[in-house]
Each structure stands twice: as structure tokens, then as C-alpha cells.
């Protein structure tokens, strides 16, 4: 028996895909992905229409999808994150019904519970055998972890693996196993390695980012959570990465041995593990070549599924074991609500990803961001879109110092004890307004809802409106 079929078209035919169904994709090939476009073109050529696409994230390399939306091949979109080019189109209102935004944790939960039913999952795999045992850890298009693809493979009615590196059965390293796979397709290339992962994740030199990072690291030290067994997550953004760098210095100086770092893993976190700051890395997604290399060779670098990472219906998750998470924000309001979905003009340019999940779970959730970007204030009266509710956010760190959610008086006391500069959120807003002036709120906002943002319990957290 072989599951190998000769083309994507044959896989689509055999899967039984029909108009009106839901198909899914993962985003581990990030900006270098060829698979979504190849599959969608084949579907369009076959005359199938009215599909819902559930993609864990979309990047600007997926712009051809916008044409499939315009011509009716795709009429529904569910995702966790979209990049700026796609977001601009969606904000213009090209889809007749609202985009559904989930978190990285809610997506696999909803897939597993059937709330979000997937008829056919088309999953890119950097290496696979002909029965569908596959991995992202090796191959010419290696991307590392396949964490976001696992729920799709397990719960879709039909699962199609698409690879450019077919190896003899059985594949030794199996991220997704054959028991979930229906068909395997070999193509010339699944993606452009340059777009899949960045070569290196560089430390920022921006003095403001470094200042923020230094305060962030000191606040973590002051929180009392930084001790043996410490667990940590941070993003790949400038200030977040720099905060990890300062934290590394503190941990090494004090001889603190952390338990694990979680999340999207960068080479910098790999270095922290290798230098003894952490025992393990729990990896749902690799961000750069160093992380990919590490997950392929180091057994302490553990691949986990998105459900295991942060699924709200999971029996337990890695996110629940987190001490501290450092996250970014495009806007934050005086109630500590964070927006990572839209820019200051109201255009969609992101999404929660795991932001909302880990913020809800970690013992201390810290947002790091400059108080102004290009004369746009970070702190506003009401964010354009609530991506992560203020009840999940404990601390904001800007170049001015720390700002603490009034609910966390314990942290406020600690930070004062450590003589960190402390600002009230309203005070910070006043400084920002003084520097930047007050912009018109959403001058081009239309009345039509173009996206619904779901909270971790599946309720609607906020709505995003069309930009005229």
C-alpha cells in the first residue's frame, strides 16, 4: 500500500473535497510558503468554490489568496494572524463575511472539539515518507517544529501531506505520524528557504529598545519569580529579544537554572539553554536557522503541538506552567487591554497568535514597547481592537520605566522596593499625548464588521471594522 499520489490535483480529487467545505493550512513555512498557493490554484482550476480556509497564519506570500476570495473560490477565512498586505485587503472588506480570528491555543482546541470542523487539511512537510510519517526538522525546506499542524492532521476528515523531500519508509523523526495521514504528494519545492526562517535573529542596537529591555529584565528580577526552575517565553521582536539578553546575564551571574523556555523559539533562546539558563526548550515554532538546527539535534529541544502549547481545552498546557512572558503591543489602553491586530489607522496588520493565550496563563505578563512609534502613542484611551484583555496583562515596560496593572499591587510594591521608575498608566498617556498630540480616532472607520476576534473561551472579544 502506498499513500503517494501523483499530484496535488489527484490528492484533492481523492480527498472528496467539494464546494462549501473547509480546508486548512499551517504557517510553519512562514513568508516562504509555496503550498497554500499551489493547493488553492489547483482547487480554483478544478472549479471548486465557496470554501472556508482555516490557516494558522497568513503572510504576504499568500496574496494570491485574495484573488481567490474576489472570485468566490474562498468565501470564509479563519486564522490567528495575518501580515500587513493581506490585512489591508481584508480591512477593505473583500470578504462578504467577517474573518474569524482565533488564538494559537483556541484554534487547535476548536479543531479538536469539532467547533471548527476541517474537511481536508493540506499540510506542508519538509520531510516525509510515502505513508505520511513526516517532520519539519530536516530537509531542504526545514522549518523546525510542526506544532501548528498537529491538530489539523489529527482531527481533519482527510489529511494530505505535501513534501519536497520524500524519504524511505519509515522516517526516523516523526512529528506527525502515518495513522493520521490519507495521502502524500511529492512536489518540486514546498517553499523558499530564505522566507521560511531568517538566517539569524539579530539583537537590536536601538538605544530605546535596549533601555526598555534593561528595565524589563530588572523588573523580572524584582518580581521574585526569577529563581531555580524559572520558566519563560519571549517574542522575536527587538526589545523582547534584548530583554532575554539582559535576563541571560542576570541568570548567569546569579547562577539561576531555569526549567524551560517556551513558544516560538529563536537562536537566542537556544543559546540561553546551551549556556545553562534553561534545562529545556518547548517549541511550537522555530523562528531562525539556529533554532531549526537545534531542534533537529538536541533532545532537550522538545517539539510540542499548539494544543499542548496553549489549548484552552487541553487537560494541561505548557503555557500554564509559565512564570514570565514578555510580549509586544501596537496599542495599549488605560485599562491595560492590548491590541496586536490593527495599526493606528485601523488596518489589520497582525493577530493574537499566542499572545492572548500565554498572557492569560503566565504568572507575570509583561508588555514591552516604546511609548511612541513615529509619533503614534502606544497608550490610548481605548485600543482599536482588544486582542488580549487587560485582565491578563500585569506590567507595561517602556523607555520611561514600569507601569503596573492596579490589580497587581504585589508587583508594584516589589518594583518600588527595587527602585525601578514606576509610572501610572494615565501619567504615561499624558506624557505620550504631550509629545505626540491627540490623533483623530479611526477617521476612516466604516460600519461593516470585517473581522471578529475570539477570546480563549470562544466568545467574541472584539470586532474589527472596515477601513474606508
Amino acid at each position, binding site marked *: 500500500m502506498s499513500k503517494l499520489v501523483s499530484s496535488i490535483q489527484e490528492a484533492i480529487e481523492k480527498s472528496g473535497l467539494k464546494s462549501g467545505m473547509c480546508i486548512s493550512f499551517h504557517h510553519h513555512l512562514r513568508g516562504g510558503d509555496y503550498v497554500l498557493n499551489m493547493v488553492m490554484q489547483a482547487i480554483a482550476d478544478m472549479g471548486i468554490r465557496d470554501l472556508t480556509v482555516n490557516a494558522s497564519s497568513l503572510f504576504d506570500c499568500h496574496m494570491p489568496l485574495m484573488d481567490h476570495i474576489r472570485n468566490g473560490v474562498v468565501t470564509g477565512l479563519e486564522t490567528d494572524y495575518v501580515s500587513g498586505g493581506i490585512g489591508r485587503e481584508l480591512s477593505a472588506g473583500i470578504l462578504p463575511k467577517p474573518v474569524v480570528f482565533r488564538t494559537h491555543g483556541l484554534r487547535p482546541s476548536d479543531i479538536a472539539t469539532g467547533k471548527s470542523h476541517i474537511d481536508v487539511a493540506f499540510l506542508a512537510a519538509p520531510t516525509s515518507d510515502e505513508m505520511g510519517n513526516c517532520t519539519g526538522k530536516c530537509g531542504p525546506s526545514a522549518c523546525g517544529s510542526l506544532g501548528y499542524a498537529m491538530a489539523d492532521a489529527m482531527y481533519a476528515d482527510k489529511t494530505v501531506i505535501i513534501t519536497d523531500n520524500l524519504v524511505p519508509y519509515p522516517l526516523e523523526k516523526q512529528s506527525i505520524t502515518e495513522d493520521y495521514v490519507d495521502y502524500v504528494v511529492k512536489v518540486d519545492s514546498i517553499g523558499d528557504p530564505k522566507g521560511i526562517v531568517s538566517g539569524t535573529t539579530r539583537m537590536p*542596537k536601538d*538605544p*530605546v529598545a*535596549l*533601555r526598555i529591555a*534593561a*528595565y524589563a529584565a*530588572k523588573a523580572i528580577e524584582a518580581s521574585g519569580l526569577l529563581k531555580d526552575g524559572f520558566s519563560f517565553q519571549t517574542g522575536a521582536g527587538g526589545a523582547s529579544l534584548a530583554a532575554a539578553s539582559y535576563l541571560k546575564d542576570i541568570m548567569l551571574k546569579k547562577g539561576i537554572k531555569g526549567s524551560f523556555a517556551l513558544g516560538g523559539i529563536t537562536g537566542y533562546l537556544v543559546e540561553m539553554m546551551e549556556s545553562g539558563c534553561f534545562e529545556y526548550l518547548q517549541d511550537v515554532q522555530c523562528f531562525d536557522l539556529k533554532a531549526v538546527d537545534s531542534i533537529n539535534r538536541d533532545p532537550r529541544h522538545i517539539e510540542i503541538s499548539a494544543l499542548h502549547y496553549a489549548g484552552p481545552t487541553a487537560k494541561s498546557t505548557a503555557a500554564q506552567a509559565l512564570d514570565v512572558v514578555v510580549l509586544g503591543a501596537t496599542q495599549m489602553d488605560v485599562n491595560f487591554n492590548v491590541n496586536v491586530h490593527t495599526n493606528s489607522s485601523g488596518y489589520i496588520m497582525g493577530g493574537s497568535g499566542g499572545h492572548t493565550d500565554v498572557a492569560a496563563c503566565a504568572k507575570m505578563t509583561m508588555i514591552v514597547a516604546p511609548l*511612541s512609534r513615529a509619533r503614534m502613542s502606544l497608550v490610548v484611551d481605548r485600543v482599536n481592537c482588544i486582542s488580549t484583555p487587560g485582565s491578563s496583562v500585569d506590567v507595561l515596560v517602556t*523607555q*520611561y*520605566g514600569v507601569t503596573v496593572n492596579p490589580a497587581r499591587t504585589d508587583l508594584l510594591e516589589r518594583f518600588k522596593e*527595587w*527602585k*525601578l*521608575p514606576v509610572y501610572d498608566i494615565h501619567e504615561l498617556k499624558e506624557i505620550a499625548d504631550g*509629545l505626540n498630540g491627540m490623533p483623530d480616532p479611526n477617521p476612516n472607520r466604516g460600519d461593516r464588521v470585517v473581522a471578529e476576534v475570539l477570546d480563549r473561551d470562544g466568545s467574541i472579544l472584539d470586532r474589527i471594522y472596515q477601513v474606508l
Partner: protein
Amino acid sequence: MRRTMLFLPGNNPNMIVNGGLLGSDSIILDLEDAVSPDNKDAARNLVAQTLKSLKFPGCEVIVRLNGLDTPYWKDDLKKIIPLKPDVVMPTKVSGKEYIETLDAAMTEIEEENGIPVGTVKILALIETAAGVEHAYDIACASKRMTGVFLGAEDLTADLRCARTKEGGEIAYARGRLVCAARAAGIDAYDCPFTDVEDTEGLEKDTRLAKSLGFSGKAAINPRQVDCINQVFSPTAAEIEYAKEVFKAIEEGKKQGKGAVSLRGKMIDAPIVSRAATVLDMAEKLGGGIPE
């Protein structure tokens, strides 16, 4: 306390707006070398607006002026002095006449604007061989004088020698400036270390400056600030010793002793003065970054 003086180009709003948050004790808003001739007006206006509308709590503002040999300095003063920066920094100061000319012009503007004469201080940048030789006269040339600052790049050009990281070529100028400043009762500040990637070199050069008697050092990049601050901040041992000095004096008084000793050494006036300086700095450095 002026451990660090961070240079910021006078025509870069992004840098200026965050200038007071980068950890330095002073910022130098530069109208001189960092600004090209066709941008002098824009920089002057931006610096003036900055002085008018931004606050830099806990951070002193110094404005570096264009030289007296340029057509810009008078306009610099007219625009800047009425807005009362803490300090102005004249460049290529070669003798006391330079400071006297500047002082007179500043006095005129202060009087015109109803500002008490002498409000704005002067920190002279000495960067010529003549300036080094006349350092003491310069330091005594005006009541506004708060310090002298060594500019090594221009100085070595004037001396016709190469500028090195080791700094042997400026050893004389360093010693001379510190001596002149201390004799005049003001402070001396060391030149910036220009290789921003060489953190070890920066630390070594800063330690050397401190050992020679400088009160602080200029930084040309915000990444240099923490290192310089750390070197020029009193260490825990220094603070402890300073506390012991005052405790010993106190106990000596109680016991009616005329002379007091600590750790086998007589506590004399210079020891007390140094201990007071250390405790004063420690008091000002309440926390924050760096440790």
C-alpha cells in the same frame, strides 16, 4: 553629578525626544560637528523647541555651540540662552579671551530677557594645543565656568599625532586639564571613546580617566552610558568606607578626641571630603539602571 555626558545630534528629533531616558546624567544637544552647515538653522530651531517644550527630569541639558570663528555662534546664543539650558559648551576654546567674549554676549542676552546674570553655565571644550596650555586661565575666566572637557580628536590633529586607543598621545593633556580644573575649583571631563563596538576598551579607558581625577566622561553612543556610569559610580566598598569615616568622626567627638583614625590611618580633611562626595553620589543614585 555629571558622570556621563551623552552627545545627541541637534537635528534628530527621535534621539532628542528620548535623550533624557537613556541613563546619562547630562545630554549634549549638539549644534556643532553633528550638524552640517545647511542644517544649522533647523537644528537651532529644534533645540530651541526642545528646551521650550520637553522636560528631562534628572538629566542636565547642555547645548554645544558653534565656534566663535564661525558665523553661527551669535545666532545660537540668541536663540538658546533665553530658554535657559543648564549649560552651554563652547568649542575649540583656546584662551581666556574666548570665554570672556562668550560670557559678555551671554550676559547681554540674559539681561535683555530678564534672566539673572550667570544662570547659564559654561563647560569649555578644550581641543587645541593652545587651549591645553591655557587651561587654568580658561577655567578661571568666568564665574559661569563649571568644567573643562577634553576633545581628543581635534587635539591630536592639532598636535599632528595619531589618536590611539591607549591614549599615550593625550596623557599630558589629560593630566594638565585635571590639574587646571581642580586648581580652579571646577570639574574636568574626559573625551569620548570613539569605538562604540569595543566595550572592553571603553571600560578600560573610563577606568583610566577616573584614576586620573576626571569627574566623568562623554559618550557618543547611548550604549556607552551604562558602562561609564558604572565606573564613575561609587562602589559598595567605597560607600561602606565613607560611612565608616563619618561614624568614626562621630564616635571621636563623643569621646572628645581631637584626631580620629580609621583602619590605622588618620582621618584628615581630604578623606572627609572624599567620603562626603561618595555619600552624596550614593544618595543621588537611588536605584534604577545600572546597579
